[in-house]
């Protein structure tokens, strides 16, 4: 999927994705959402040293915790921006959790979810709204 990358003084957003205010993103293709945390989120957390992900086959719900990202200083819950069944998780993160820092929108993705309620994504933020949300946070 071609992604347009926009950088700001704070962090990068990508145009193809939808965003939750809690700083997760989802990109959707053929009814399957790829979920991860944003560049803004990874830069706030600092070096990621461990990622707890759900099992494939598990059900996740919008705004509910689906995993935990551990940085050197703390453990942070991450929330699913969509509901559905987990069809894949990024196994690479077990050995290389720092991918979340170096490539949050691509190699550092966390899970793929088969959407049970595709209309849910309507209420997520687009790239410009999310960017404004991050800037307001600072």
């Amino acid at each position: 999927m071609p992604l347009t990358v926009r950088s700001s003084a704070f962090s990068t957003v990508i145009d193809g994705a939808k965003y939750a205010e809690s700083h997760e993103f989802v990109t959707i293709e053929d009814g399957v959402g790829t979920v991860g945390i944003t560049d803004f989120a990874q830069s706030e957390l600092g070096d990621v040293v461990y990622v707890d992900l759900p099992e494939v086959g598990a059900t996740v719900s919008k705004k509910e915790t689906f995993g935990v990202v551990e940085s050197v200083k703390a453990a942070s819950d991450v929330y699913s921006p969509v509901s559905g069944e987990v069809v894949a998780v990024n196994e690479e993160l077990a050995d290389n959790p720092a991918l979340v820092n170096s490539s949050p929108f691509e190699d550092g993705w966390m899970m793929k979810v088969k959407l049970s309620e595709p209309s849910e994504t309507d209420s997520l933020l687009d790239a410009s709204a999310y960017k404004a949300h991050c800037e307001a946070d600072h």
Partner: protein
Amino acid sequence: MVPFAGWSMPIQYKDSIMESTIWCRENGSLFDVSHMCGVSLKGKDATSFLEKIVVGDIASLADGTGTLSVITNEKGGAIDDTVITKVNSDHLYLVVNAGCREKDLNHIEGHMAEFKAKGGDVNWEIHDERSLLAFQGPKAAGILQGMTKSELNTMYFGQFRMIDLNGIPCWVTRTGYTGEDGFEISAPDERTLELTEAIMAGEGMRLCGLGARDSLRLEAGLCLYGNDLTQDITPLEAGLAWTIGKRRREAWDFLGGDVLKAQHAAGIKKRRVGLVIKGAPARSHAEIQTADGQTIGEVTSGGFSPNLKKNIAMGYVEKKFGKAGTELKVLVRGKLNDAVVTKMPFVQTTYFKG
């Protein structure tokens, strides 16, 4: 920036905690630890007074040397840990934790009033007019040597000197909270910025915040008061029996000494241990279990070690499970992860002992 014991403190500067922790061990880092509270006890009875409330053999310290010690309560628990320096027999200098300042000062003041009422000669000075910098890492000594005529290669771990650094009158102790060679430098407030700039002009020096300070002390196996040491934990349980001087261990003549004497005779039931943990990092309050599921203690601090690239922690377990190599489990978010009791410090310390 975060609020910390009434101060606003940086968790990190420009570097990430990971980078900053590694940088200190490979190069050198400067920490602003002015939040910590420096206190001088002066008077001809300062030593005998202090020995009533701490476990260390202060009388036997040579002038210009210091040691880690513990301020105990009536139950032998730790009110605080502190580095005590004997400047000379009439002047002792302590640095206590910022988070314990009020509690410690009230405690000292109460006992001092009692001591003086019986004719003891002791007074205190609280050094709010001074700032404290910690300068740590393998390059620290070289840079500091360029700022003073005092020969630092004859100043060993734990030693103290009142010397000028670039003409600034400083109190320098060769100590720290990282496991590295380094110094803690007390300077007059109005010249601390100048001193900081002079040190930071040294090649490869970086500022280090609270986040990396915590990682460094954990790697060095040093207690964080409030987590690994509390008023309900005794120095014997905390692995700090070595701070109780031999003479003190015969007389047990300090606050809570009777309790510690009994505990020493009966043997401790729990002890502080180091753990290396697989899977997710274990943080404070994570439950520690045996392989067969019996709960035997909890983690008091833990995280990912930037230098060792693995999860390390310290915690308290029943004594019989405290031997290095013992395989245990740690419960993190409902998952039991493998843990091995490991000797501390986790990293090799590089204290300058000549």
